[in-house]
């Protein structure tokens, strides 16, 4: 459905996305995991045709078999309306505070499909029920500020589903929500993807959320896709040093802070922080922070290696070991 081939996004001297290659099929649930500055949100914006004007794009992006290189804004608008939908982190900022949420959800149906008010109302009501909003008739008449954070996120999901998209991109949809609500929103996304046969692209830094939601993940760092594979495999046996560091740095809630003898259990942490775009090393982006770095890592870019079926990683060390 969506194919990215050697796709890059640059800004002057910096590179936000370097040679991204990705295929998304109907019904896939794909997680894009990375910290701030990893390029995960830039990737999502490119899939929606919303890359900033100042960005220099290269490589191939095709949707439904069509090359999107010269696509006009009008063509993108049709795609965004009918095929690909996106939900964002902050549900309050994404809803018009002066409109009743029911009207907001009905708008795309009326504009893009020319539905009558009655027909749109009927479909919106069904969507409100589908996304699990109680008393949907009353809720549709309310304004965003009258709803809780979780309800607002549900309204946004209903809005995203308004024109039956084949793919839903969710950018940090649970970050602003409380644990309990976040659990229920991820459950909802999985259920919707299953029932509708819709592809779900789940972008997050939250490893716990991605473990619950997706079948496959891509781990990103500094604009590179450093590792990918089945979610359970990658989380259980990470191959790239960055993925290993990220997983180790995330505390395990079942492990208490002290050992039995009262000594501290320190967290394994990665040194430093993600460098700014224009200061990333030219070779492996993780060079400089990597605990197992080789001499040529900072200058030579590692190739993406197919390590096993549906399992890839880009690291010089893996190549050395294979040799």
């Amino acid at each position, binding site marked *: 459905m969506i194919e990215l081939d050697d796709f890059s996004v640059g800004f002057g001297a910096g590179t936000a996305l370097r040679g991204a290659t990705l295929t998304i099929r109907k019904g896939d649930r794909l997680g894009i995991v990375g910290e701030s500055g990893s390029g995960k949100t830039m990737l999502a914006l490119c899939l929606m045709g919303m890359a900033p004007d100042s960005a220099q794009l290269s490589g191939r992006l095709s949707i439904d078999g069509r090359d999107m290189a010269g696509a006009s804004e009008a063509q993108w608008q049709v795609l965004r309306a009918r095929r690909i939908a996106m939900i964002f982190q902050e549900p309050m900022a994404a809803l018009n505070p002066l409109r009743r949420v029911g009207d907001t959800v009905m708008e795309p149906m009326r504009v893009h499909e020319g539905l009558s008010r009655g027909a749109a109302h009927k479909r919106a009501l069904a969507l409100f029920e589908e996304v699990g909003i109680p008393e949907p008739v009353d809720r549709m008449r309310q304004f965003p500020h009258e709803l809780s954070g979780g309800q607002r996120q549900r309204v946004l999901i209903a809005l995203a589903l308004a024109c039956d998209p084949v793919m839903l991109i969710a950018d940090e949809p649970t970050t602003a929500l409380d644990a309990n609500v976040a659990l229920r929103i991820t459950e909802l996304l999985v259920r919707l993807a299953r029932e509708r046969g819709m592809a779900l692209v789940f972008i997050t830094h939250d490893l716990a959320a991605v473990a619950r939601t997706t079948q496959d993940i891509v781990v990103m760092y500094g604009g590179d896709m450093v590792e990918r594979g089945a979610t359970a495999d990658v989380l259980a046996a990470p191959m790239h040093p960055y993925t290993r560091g990220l997983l180790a740095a995330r505390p*395990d809630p079942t492990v208490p802070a002290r050992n039995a003898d009262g000594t501290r259990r320190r967290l394994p942490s990665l040194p430093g922080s993600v460098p700014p775009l224009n200061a990333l090393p030219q070779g492996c982006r993780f060079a400089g922070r990597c605990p197992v770095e080789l001499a040529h890592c900072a200058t030579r870019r590692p190739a993406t290696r197919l390590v096993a079926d549906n399992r890839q990683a880009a690291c010089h060390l893996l190549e050395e070991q294979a040799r």
Partner: protein
Amino acid sequence: MSAPLIEVRSVSRHYRLPRVSLLRAPAVLTAVESTSFTIRAGETLGIVGESGSGKSTLARMVMAFEKPDSGQVLFQGQDLHALSATELRKLRQKFQMVFQDPFGSLDPRRKIGWSIAEPLRAIGVDANTARRTAEALEQVGLHPRDAEKYPHEFSGGQRQRIAIARAIVTRPALLVADEAVSALDVSVQAQILNLLMDLQDQLGLGILFISHDLAVVAAICDHILVMQHGKPLESGPAAQVLHRPAHLYTQTLLKAAGVSP
């Protein structure tokens, strides 16, 4: 066992909501209801709960920013809310706070050395401020020369180190950290948690650590208090709460924080 550093005895706090009708009394919101805990030197208590659970209100009462409607907050045996303003100002250097947002809590137009020394000026320490600022910077893993830089020159993790330096510059006995690592990336989060543990071991600090994320609470706390809707749900030694959660809600928090599916 050492004497308690801070003892919170059955505190409650209510807020009156805005009046919606002339004829009816305004509704009352219970932010915190009869909650008690104790923190000793060198110990960390974690308070975990979602937004609206009352954990930040508790922090503000411990910091004496706000008075409880009933109950007491004893700091080293003294009732904080019974002290005069002058006595309280003098005592403040003993308990300091680190906030969530390292971007919002530093004045962008001041060099960070100025911001770090601010609590010292507030308690009337004029001598040695430069030396103590340099000392605090070193303790949080920054360079004394960094005092001459502005906040925008630092990354998020470094800014949180600066916020911690400002909190420890008065040599407090208690540190209150309200969502202090929540805005940070995972890899940086681990660095800051390690820093807090090191400082605690070096300085014998008591820490009140507040977070919505049970995983980070588990990583640093000796005792855990779970709050929901202003009420204490359960509390106890970390291992007990994490391994034998008594409440369904604690189990949900555990599920939300765990990586294994």
